[in-house]
């Protein structure tokens, strides 16, 4: 099948009309095959998604007559945490399949007299919900928070989705966009879209604070870094190895990264799988410092979560956090692919840990105010 796909691809223009028609037909046939082979699972999945829709409809009733509500997918952890950190009137909603479910959600928005609907990223089926809301009541404002940056357009899925939402804007079905990084806000504003800026934020008062155990080792954490090339896990491990007397806590760690720690002779206290956020946040409190030297981001939540847990976190120069501050001078990395440089910055960070944490606490007070103001502007805009 792969050979046939490659053969056909040689003769047709990528993203052209014929390409899209064939892609659509292929998609329909694949879906049909999947349904036949996995009939029982599909029925169970559909039941699950329908239940999610029903729960969302109930939740919408709680927000009757509100100025806004925000839909977010609770299974997309980054986006979900970002949404929870910014907005009050939030409605978890997974994929919406089938006309009946689409209508249920849209009608619930209209019937509960909600003035504006914000979609925190776009999930399968949400474009149809958005269109239906506009069809039922064109006065309801629809807004989209785009959590990615232009790097992501490398992916067919993200690029096509971006084009879809841009077209919906041009058709008047989306009223405005918000971006969680200033460069994206400036870029789309310049492209000609009504844009707003948001900043991801965290509030973690509910997480248990645990006492740090005494240790002779310098424990350094790397988290959620095994999933993509951009997360730069191998450089991070090398950098930790260069720190004298270090031990790495890596969660999750995959087989290849584990093999690399063996080559490095790096001691680790790692876990092979993802662990619940609450558990992870308690775990990281045992570290001296965490590192997150990724290559590109928008508003990465982990560095903020780490600081909130009392542990400084070094992060790449690829987001808006701490830019132009003394704190930024300590914790922003500008040479993410250089283990020796990262090592120096880790050591410097540990030496100034108390000062860094004090600077963070001051920064966070102002940041909370700024975030609330940006959210308000977006809701009202």
């Amino acid at each position, binding site marked *: 099948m792969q050979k046939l796909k490659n053969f056909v691809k040689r003769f047709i*223009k*990528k*993203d052209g009309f014929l390409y899209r028609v064939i892609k659509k037909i292929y998609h329909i046939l694949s879906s049909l095959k999947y349904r036949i082979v996995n009939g029982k699972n599909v029925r169970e999945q559909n039941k699950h998604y329908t239940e999610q829709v029903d729960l969302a409809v109930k939740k919408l009733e709680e927000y009757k007559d509100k100025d806004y509500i925000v839909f977010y997918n609770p299974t997309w952890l980054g986006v979900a945490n970002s949404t929870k950190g910014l907005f009050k009137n939030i409605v978890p909603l997974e994929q919406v399949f089938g006309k009946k479910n689409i209508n249920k959600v849209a009608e619930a928005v209209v019937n509960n007299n909600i003035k504006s609907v914000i979609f925190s990223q776009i999930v399968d089926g949400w474009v149809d919900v958005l269109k239906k809301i506009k069809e039922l009541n064109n006065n309801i404002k629809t807004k989209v928070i785009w959590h990615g*940056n*232009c*790097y*992501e*357009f*490398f992916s067919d899925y993200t*690029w096509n989705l971006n*084009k879809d939402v*841009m077209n919906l804007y041009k058709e008047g079905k989306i009223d405005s966009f918000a971006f969680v990084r*200033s*460069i994206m806000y*400036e*870029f789309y504003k*310049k*492209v*000609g879209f009504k844009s707003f800026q948001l900043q991801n934020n965290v509030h973690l008062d509910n997480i248990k604070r645990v006492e740090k155990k005494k240790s002779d080792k310098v424990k350094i954490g790397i988290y959620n870094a095994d999933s*993509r*090339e*951009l997360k*730069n*896990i*191998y*450089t991070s*491990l*090398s950098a930790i*190895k*260069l720190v004298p007397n270090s031990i790495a806590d890596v969660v999750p760690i995959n087989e*290849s990264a584990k*093999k*690399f720690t063996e*080559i*490095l*002779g790096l001691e680790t206290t790692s876990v092979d799988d993802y662990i619940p956020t609450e558990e992870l946040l308690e775990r990281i409190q045992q570290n001296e410092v965490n590192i997150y030297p990724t*290559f*590109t981001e928008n508003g990465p939540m982990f560095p903020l979560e780490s600081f909130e847990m009392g542990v400084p976190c070094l992060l790449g*120069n*690829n987001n808006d956090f701490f830019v132009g501050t003394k704190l930024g001078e300590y914790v922003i990395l*500008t*040479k*993410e*692919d*250089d*283990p*020796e*440089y990262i090592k120096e910055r880790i050591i410097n960070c540990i030496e100034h840990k108390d000062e860094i944490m004090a600077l963070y606490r001051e920064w966070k007070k102002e940041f909370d105010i700024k975030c609330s103001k940006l959210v308000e502007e977006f809701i009202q805009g």
Partner: protein
Amino acid sequence: MEKYILLYGDKKPEDNICITNMFENTRQINLGWTDFDYNHNVKIIDEEIEKGDTQVIFSGFEIGWDKLVDYIKEKNIKVKVISNTQDSLLYYEYERNNFFRLLELSKEGKVDDMAFLRKGEYEVYKSLGYKCSYLMENYILDSNKKKEVKKENGTIDIGIYPLNYTWDKNIFNQLCIGKMLDNSNVNYNELDERMTDFLTTMNIESKPDKIENINEDEIINKVIKNDINVSLSFTEYFHPVFFISMEQGVPCIIGNTSDLFDGNEILDKYIVTKAEDNPIINSKLIEDCLKNRQVVMEEYRKWKNEYNKVAEENRNKFLEK
């Protein structure tokens, strides 16, 4: 100086631009594990050994080359490898497997020296006890290849010539610069139609300009058309587009992905971005670089004269090791 032959493959032609410029005695070999590849490569190695070469240097460590190392070592000839990967690229199985195999061979004493093109990488493997060196990348322009460059005409022509359509080339964030810099036009290497689709959708002034064969002459012909070139990968060890552009007299900004300008305030300020994925910072860097074009190019020439000497010394040291 000890005689040598440097062998390189065709998997990363962009690396070969610098490596064949740095070393005089070079030959291309195949990569692969078939008998055909092995026999072809052995024939080349035998020819070179017959000439009396006392060491064989591999540029990179590709699939199937471990067998060649065994073959050469049986003849008691020194083997060195210039690593063409780095930790940031080990996410890929191909890179990882070859690099881990190289480390094994080094541990077994079959590779006499591993050279790294970035200081940080060198420090890691030196600390682990591997026999390794830091090799300074370089490129020197043959004066016959010097061409006339674009004259100012009111539009800022920005050249963006990634040589691979891969994540580390940071392609779309680079293209965004065209939107953020007023009165500009992007000339770019169209590696995928998505690039053109993106530029059109975002209404960015641009002109596709395909590099058909990745070689020095073709890149020279592209970079001279612009006021400035941009090469902002997330991670690098060779910088062929940067060197070719600067040697032709066209400024080129690069990512913070080299050790080239450590200690040179002017070039570090006007040439090196500290945020590869930020088109606002990078469009400002371009403006500043162009405003100070004369200062930048004069400083580059001064720096390069000195660098050529130091890099040559460094290369000779590696050859004599």
